[in-house]
């Protein structure tokens, strides 16, 4: 009788250990459905960056599992350009709620490049991070100096400006020529500005943000 009772004790212990293992696995699962988007732009005066996180998720609690009260999920975005910015306040709600948050930053364009670092994260107040992503790169502005070479280009009665970088400087983004028309043809130079984005370890992308200024004075290319 005594040995049977001890045998039952051992069986109960094994049951206990298996139950402990089960409690740590598969009780609660979360299927994130989030997206992130980053944007860099300029108006020639400032450089703007934005980081967006948007989405929701499915939290599934297995039958019989304990559900702690007041679980909060928060989606937030970190946006640092140069030394400006940081984590935004984010958007919070229930575990199955839809969360959307955009963190905008801006810095003055002073001719230099800026490091741009970003992260997004969806965090559960009880379980910690449930989804995240991030990246880094360099944002800057490239300048092309174009010299008026007379009638030509794509516009009727327009004129053609050819790239002419003074003092041996080079433009990272400028094409060999640009076309213009109207009173712009009365000027000697056209300065075109391009936004550049170089992801860490990647190649530079150039965006032409429609920022051209005619002038009778040249500027250095870069």
């Amino acid at each position: 009788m005594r040995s049977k009772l001890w045998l039952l004790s051992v069986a109960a212990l094994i049951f206990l250990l298996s139950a402990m293992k089960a409690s740590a696995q598969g009780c609660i699962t979360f299927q994130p459905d989030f997206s992130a988007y980053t944007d860099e732009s300029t108006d020639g005066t400032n450089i703007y960056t934005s980081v967006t996180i948007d989405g929701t998720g499915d939290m599934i609690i297995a039958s019989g599992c304990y559900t702690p009260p007041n679980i909060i999920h928060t989606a937030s975005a970190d946006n640092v350009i140069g030394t400006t910015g940081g984590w935004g306040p984010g958007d919070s709600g229930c575990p199955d709620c839809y969360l959307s948050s955009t963190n905008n930053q801006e810095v003055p364009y002073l001719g230099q490049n800026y490091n741009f670092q970003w992260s997004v994260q969806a965090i559960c107040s009880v379980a910690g991070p449930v989804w995240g992503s991030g990246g880094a790169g360099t944002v800057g502005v490239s300048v092309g100096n174009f010299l008026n070479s007379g009638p030509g280009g794509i516009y009727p009665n327009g004129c053609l400006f050819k790239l002419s970088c003074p003092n041996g400087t080079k433009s990272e983004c400028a094409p060999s020529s640009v076309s213009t028309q109207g009173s712009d043809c009365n000027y000697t130079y056209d300065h075109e500005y391009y936004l550049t984005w170089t992801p860490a370890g990647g190649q530079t992308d150039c965006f032409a943000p429609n920022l051209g200024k005619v002038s009778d004075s040249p500027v250095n290319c870069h």
Partner: protein
Amino acid sequence: MWGVSVIYRVPTLLISALFTLACALQAQSNPSAMHQMSVSSTTIDGAVHPEQIPDSTAYRLYLIATSEPASPTTEQVRRQNARLNKVGLNDKDRQTVASVLATFNLKYHDWINRYNEVASAAWAQHQSFDKTSLLLERDNLVQATRDELQSKLSTDGWTRFDAHVKSEKKHMRISVPEAKP
């Protein structure tokens, strides 16, 4: 007699205690189990696989990030203009886009509020809710905004806008369910 009783009673009590504890754990009544939440997803990087970012997702993210309220601040106008500069629109098309995006901004936030009312109520009651139909409403709103832009912009403006949004996939990342073995 007393000694024999103790010999039998100790294992009996031990068995009872262990079974009680095991059953309690089996029922997952330990809140610390929450910390063991399993998360299953993988992330698609649009810079590497832009073809795996759906157009509807690209439009949604672009519209969210670029839209501003109907009565924007000076700072919001500057920021939006800088973003739209990259598209290469003429002034008329740019104003059209700003107006359509302001309407989208309002409707999108209304939709999020409605979604969260339903989700919060269901969560409080430990019930599920019809997430699919709500997400379909979101996608329909994005599609309707896209259709409105196509109908109101000049042909050249729409071509530029559509190409720009799709090219922005390289700045997007999305989570997708992990393939089950």
